[in-house]
Each structure stands twice: as C-alpha cells, then as structure tokens.
C-alpha cells in the first residue's frame, strides 16, 4: 500500500502506458480523421509524461523537459498540417471518414 501511496517513477510510467494504449486504440477504432488526430495527441501526451518522469526521477537533468517542449511544439505543427489535410480531404470527398479516402485519385 505504501508503495502505491508514495508516488514514484513507476506510477507515471504505468499511467503513460495506459494513456498510450488508449491513444493507440483511439487511432485504431475511430474512422473520423479528427478522432484519429485526437488519438495521436493522447499518444504524444503519454510520451511527454514519460519524458518528464524520467527527467525527474532518473537523470535529474532538464533534457526531458526540453524534449517535451519539442514534442508539444511539434504536436501543434502536426495538428495544423493534419487539419489542413483533412480540410482538403473534406473538400474533395465531402467527408472526414478516412475509410472513404482510399481512391487515390489526384
């Protein structure tokens, strides 16, 4: 019990793993492109949590924080591009259902 109450690295790692799986599952089941994007965000967040947890409990240096900032910035960039693609996709196919976008016609 005291193991559970005293927050340590493992707590964060387990949490990150669960969030990661949830994100992955979201990416797998959702057919709405934006839903998939949301799943990606979940995965990235779980990675961030891991980075910061390792940074705090293992190295004690700031590298984890710096990389986490990179991740957050890149996630924003990725969301912007993904949404632009979805909009383009939507204009062409009138849907954001990714299963419909398998035509490969230019």
């Amino acid at each position, binding site marked *: 019990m005291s193991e559970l109450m005293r927050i340590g690295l493992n707590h964060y790692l387990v949490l990150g793993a669960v969030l990661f799986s949830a994100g992955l599952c979201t990416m797998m089941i959702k057919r709405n492109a934006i839903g998939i994007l949301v799943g990606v965000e979940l995965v990235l967040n779980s990675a961030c949590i891991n980075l910061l947890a390792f940074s705090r409990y293992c190295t004690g240096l700031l590298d984890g924080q710096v990389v986490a900032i990179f991740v957050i910035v890149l996630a924003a960039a990725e969301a912007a591009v993904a949404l632009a693609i979805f909009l383009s996709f939507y*204009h*062409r*196919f*009138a*849907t954001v259902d990714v299963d*419909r976008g398998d*035509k490969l*016609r230019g």
Partner: protein
Amino acid sequence: MREHGQPITTPGLVIPDPVNYDIGREKVVETDSDLRTEEMLINMGPQHPSTHGVLRVMLRTDGELILEATPHIGYLHRCAEKIGENVQYHQFVPYTDRFDYLAAMNNNLAYAMAVEKLAGIEAPKRAQYIRVIVAELNRIASHLVMFGTYGLDMGAFTPFIYGFRERELILDLFEAACGARLTYSYVTIGGVREDLPEGWVRKAGEFLDYFQPKIKEYNDLLSYNQIFIKRTANVGVIPADRAIAYGLSGPVLRGSGVKWDLRKATPDLVYDQLEFDICVGEGRMGQVGDSWDRYFVRILEMVQSARIVRQALAKLPSGDYRAKVPRLLKPPPGEVYYETENPRGQLGFYIVSDGSPVPYRLKARGPSFCNLSILNEVAKDCLLGDIPAILGSIDVVMGEVDR
C-alpha cells in the same frame, strides 16, 4: 444517390438578368464541376437587430463570405393600398403616416399633393411654406435616425443616442404643431391641418441654431472615424448606371453620384424660391456609390435641409394655412401620378378617381421598396459584417416596403 467520391455536378443554372430580362435569351452559367464550397443558409431576420424591422434576408454563405442575400418581405403588410380604395380621400391621410413612419410628414405631403393635383386644389402660400418647413425638419429627423442606427449597425452605440437626442427636439416641434410625435397627419389635402402655434417659428430657429453645429460633432464621432471608413468605404458599391437601372431614388441614388432630386428637377411647393444644393456622393473615401457615400449624402442633406428651413422660416408669409376643401371630396374622374422627394427617395401616389368619394385605385411607389431591390445584387461576395453596412446604408423602412 451518387456514388461516393464523385463530385457534385450542378446542372446549368438559369439566371435572369434582373434589368434586361429577356425570356428568349436566358444566360446559362455552367458551374465548375470542381466547385465545392461549404454553403450554409442563414435566416437573417425577421427578428434581427440590424434588419431595421421585420425584413428577412436569406443569406447563402460560405463561412463569412456571403454568396447571396435574398430579401423576403411582407411581414408588415397591412393592405394599405386596398384600404385606400375603401376610404374617402381625407380618411386615407392617417394611413400614409404608417408608410415610412420615420417621415410621416413627407408621406402626408406626397399624398396630399397627389390628391390636390387630381382635384385641382391649390394650397395657399403660407401652407406651402409650412409644408416645406415640416417636410425638411422631418427629413432631418429621419436622417438622424439613419445616422444613429447606422452607427449602431457598425457597432458604435453612441451616435444612436446623439441622433435621437436631436430628433427629440424636432418631435417636440411637431408635437407643438400637431399634437403627435410620430404619426402626424399634419399635412392634409388643401394645406395643413392647423396653423403653427405661437412662438413655433422662433423655437424652430433656436433648434436650427442648436442643431447646425452638431453636424460637425457627428462627423468627428462617426463619419471620419477610421474604423467606420474602413467598414463602409468600398463596401456595397452601386454604380450610377445600376442605380438608375434598378430605379433607386433619394440618397441611395445620389450616393451613386447621380445628381437627381425632385425638389430641383420638378420643383413643387416653393422649392424653386429657396436656395439649396443637391448633395451627391463623390467617392471621397472610396469608390463613388459605396456605403460611406450613401451615408454621407444624408449628413450633407441634413445641412441643406437646415438651410432650407432657415430660409423658409424667414420667408414664411401670413395668410391662410389651408384652402377651402369640401369635407366630402369628390375629385373629377381621371388619374394622377405624383411624386415627391422623401427622405428615402421618391414617394409616388397613383390615384384613379371615378368621381366617387373613394378612390377607384390607389397605388403607392415606396422608395424603400425600390431601393431594397438592389440588395440582392450588391450584397454578393461580401462578408457577413458587410450586410449591416449595406442594409443600413440603403436604409429601408419596412412599413413602406410592405405597406
């Protein structure tokens, strides 16, 4: 159902040219098969703060972009013209108040002049001067409302209060003259209903002394405000030829640079004895005929109207204020069409008499109705925020559109 992924192909659309409508030569527009915009239909009105009453405009939008704005009217229809065929000539005067309720004096005037022409009556000189005075004061009052509400449409709240503050003083004058503050029925067939009360002339002069410097204040507050100019200049441009083709009149027509004013073109009453200028849009802030021009023509007209009133007050003769008109007026059989320059344009009455006490046919040409017809053409490919700018600068009164 089309197969998924196929582009929607809209069949060729037929668009009648609203002016040169020629059934044999319809214009067919082929739509681009790649055209796929996210369109949304929005109902602007009949309850909407900037449609100035119960106008309903269907907006077909692509995001903030307006593709088409179709006005739908009739929410204030009260069968005024049909009523006109069932009441006696004198009795129709109060109905004209309800046409353009912001300029009831001018409505009364147009109707009275039409009936007078039909029945061959001439109003006495004093009555003519009084008519000019009240008509021009009402023009100022009406333009003040436009000034205020246009500011409101553009998101500036304060001009509204300022405009109404000054309008209140005009209404006080009218109340003193005829007892009413909105629906006057003051100008009647043969003259005016009552003579001006004692001290009215002096008080009207005092009002002008107070009012004339205020116009600079309006210009400082709204007309020359950079944001206001950005919102209205180059927005809703009506070129002169389109304005004429659509039969626009009043400040909307003059805003497009057309120097046409019935008070100068066919001077009735005593307008030919008074000095004033026709104000036209000059495109000072953008193109000729943009919303700013239409707005500013009204500001300039207030200056001119004040000038007219001052002259008329000085020249006001004594004498009868009303000609002898039988209570049961039976004009000789015939027809008449008479137009006067209202604050919103040319209000015309077409009256057919069969010699009986009631008109055989009474038809009105409402300036707001005709001016509104250009909305469809102007409010195209503009932004949602431009709709109030265009609508407000056309300045319709729904009572007159729907009648």
